[in-house]
């Protein structure tokens, strides 16, 4: 069964994209990530124009993160105040990101920038997760958890102005770092079509030293709103959100995610991290390969933005 996509202006196989949504959903449920970093490149690989792939992928992130955010909120695992402060920066970052996409597209540099960003981010994060996972799985499991919160570190962050109290996280810190982190995540989220959890979570843990129990919930809280904003802004600024494609992907994605979550509960966290790290590195390597290898045709066509 094929369907004509109104914005991508092409006819696609529904089964293929349902399966893609389900696979990405399964992996995101398995690893507890948004899956945007897999979805956007795979959509492009299947012939969806990059702009449409990124914009539509952000709507998929909304669907895949909203239920997690709700669950964490119900259990009290969200620092709403911190989330809102980050969101303030996040909205600005998203706006900048969407407009940056517009500028890059007009200059013909969009695909290159996105690929480079993917290679750098995914390469770094994938390597960290992979090695951290390998180390953790080698070590015998020790009770008491990790020593992530080391008091005394990052004294320069504590010296920043605009101190705020975040009672939920038991933090008294400057509002500047959360706003900047939010802004940065919003920016890359809009540009790469991802949720940005893989940047947000380490930042919350290592920079802000948010208690681990609140990290995922607060990150998801912010991601829901940032990706929702990114979707709307992409629709307004770039007219690149394909609602039909989004529905197909989300239908597959939400189902896949449920099964992924079930499968994830059967695996050890360290093993999951090794697998996730390897997967992220694979995507990064693939994109690096595409950048380095001589393209089959050196020329490419682009429509002029704004032209009918």
């Amino acid at each position, binding site marked *: 069964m*094929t*369907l*004509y996509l*109104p*914005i991508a*202006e*092409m*006819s696609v196989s529904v089964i293929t994209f349902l399966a893609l949504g389900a696979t990405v959903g399964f992996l995101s449920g398995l690893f507890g990530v948004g899956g945007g970093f897999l979805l956007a490149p795979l959509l492009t690989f299947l012939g969806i124009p990059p702009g449409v792939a990124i914009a539509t992928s952000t*709507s*998929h992130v*909304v*669907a*895949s*993160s*909203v*239920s*997690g955010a*709700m*669950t964490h909120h119900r259990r009290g695992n969200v620092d709403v105040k911190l989330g809102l402060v980050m969101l303030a920066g996040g909205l600005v970052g998203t706006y900048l990101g969407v407009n940056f996409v517009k500028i890059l597209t007009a200059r*013909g*540099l969009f695909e*290159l920038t996105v690929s*480079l960003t993917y290679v750098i981010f995914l390469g770094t994060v994938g390597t960290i997760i992979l090695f951290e996972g390998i180390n953790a799985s080698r070590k015998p499991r020790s009770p008491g958890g990790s020593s992530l919160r080391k008091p005394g570190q990052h004294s320069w962050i504590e010296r920043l102005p605009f101190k705020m109290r975040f009672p939920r996280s038991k933090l008294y810190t400057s509002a500047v770092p959360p706003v900047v982190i939010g802004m940065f995540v919003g920016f890359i989220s809009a540009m790469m079509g991802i949720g940005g959890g893989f940047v947000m979570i380490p930042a919350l843990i290592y920079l802000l030293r948010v208690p681990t129990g609140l990290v995922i919930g607060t990150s998801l809280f912010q991601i*829901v709103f940032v990706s*929702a904003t990114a*979707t*709307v*802004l*992409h*629709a*307004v600024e770039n*007219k690149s*959100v394909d*609602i*039909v494609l*989004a*529905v197909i992907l*989300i*239908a597959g994605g*939400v*189902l896949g*995610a*449920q099964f992924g979550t079930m499968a994830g509960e059967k695996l050890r966290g360290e093993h999951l991290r090794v697998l996730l790290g390897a997967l992220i590195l694979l995507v990064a390597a693939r994109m690096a390969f595409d*950048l*380095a*290898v*001589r*393209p089959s*045709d*050196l*020329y*490419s*066509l*682009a*429509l*002029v933005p704004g*032209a*009918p």
Partner: protein
Amino acid sequence: MMHIRMLNRLCAAIVLMFAIAGGAAAADRPKEGVEADASTRQVAITSSFTGTEILVFGTVENSVQPSPEAGTYDIIIVVEGMPGPVVVREKSRVAGIWINTSSLMFASVPSYYAIASTRPIDEIADKALLDANQIGFDHVRMAHARDADVDAATVRSFKDALIRLKEAQGVYVRRDFGVTFIGRSLFRATISLPPNVPVGPLTARVYLFKEGKLLGQYQSRVMLQREGIERFIHNFAISQPLAYGLVTVLLAAAAGLTAAFAFRKPA
């Protein structure tokens, strides 16, 4: 247009009557002309659109062709989409990676161009005639926007790339023997519209040639437009992008919450 055509026919009829009245086979035979039409005037792009074919058919008036295979006449059929600007970019290697380094903008390029003919077009007519009528990929006027600092060879290579890429996308189609005569005067050709055909009105032009001379031409329009839900969604996305974006987000959020609720673990 209509009046002129009727007038033409009337003239032809009068000429014919005089010829008959004159009795003898007059030295000045009635002039040949061409009339044509497309099988479909309206092509609807719906959610099930996977490309389609249109049949362009026509007749040579006052044909002197003894048989369909005689090859007295040559027909060229051009189906063209709306012209628009296109940027062609060229990659080159910078610091180990391939980057778009140069580009050329063509101000007006047909979004779709299908050409079918009784034989290769350069055998049918000379370059000047093809250029004048914009028949064939190489003869369509594609003016590039910035003309100051690019030499002819560069423009040529960008234009070649443009045609090659459009052909690869399936929106520039050439069929050298795509037009067939099925009678002394009746001819036909099928023109395929791929699934990615740019939406917009199409112009069908039919040219009649004999021994390298253009004897007549005929023009017709084919509407290509979105219909039904496809049209609704597209209009919605373009005219009310904010509401469209919000609806997409709400759908996504609703789907996520519904799935989480449906699969919620008991207790």
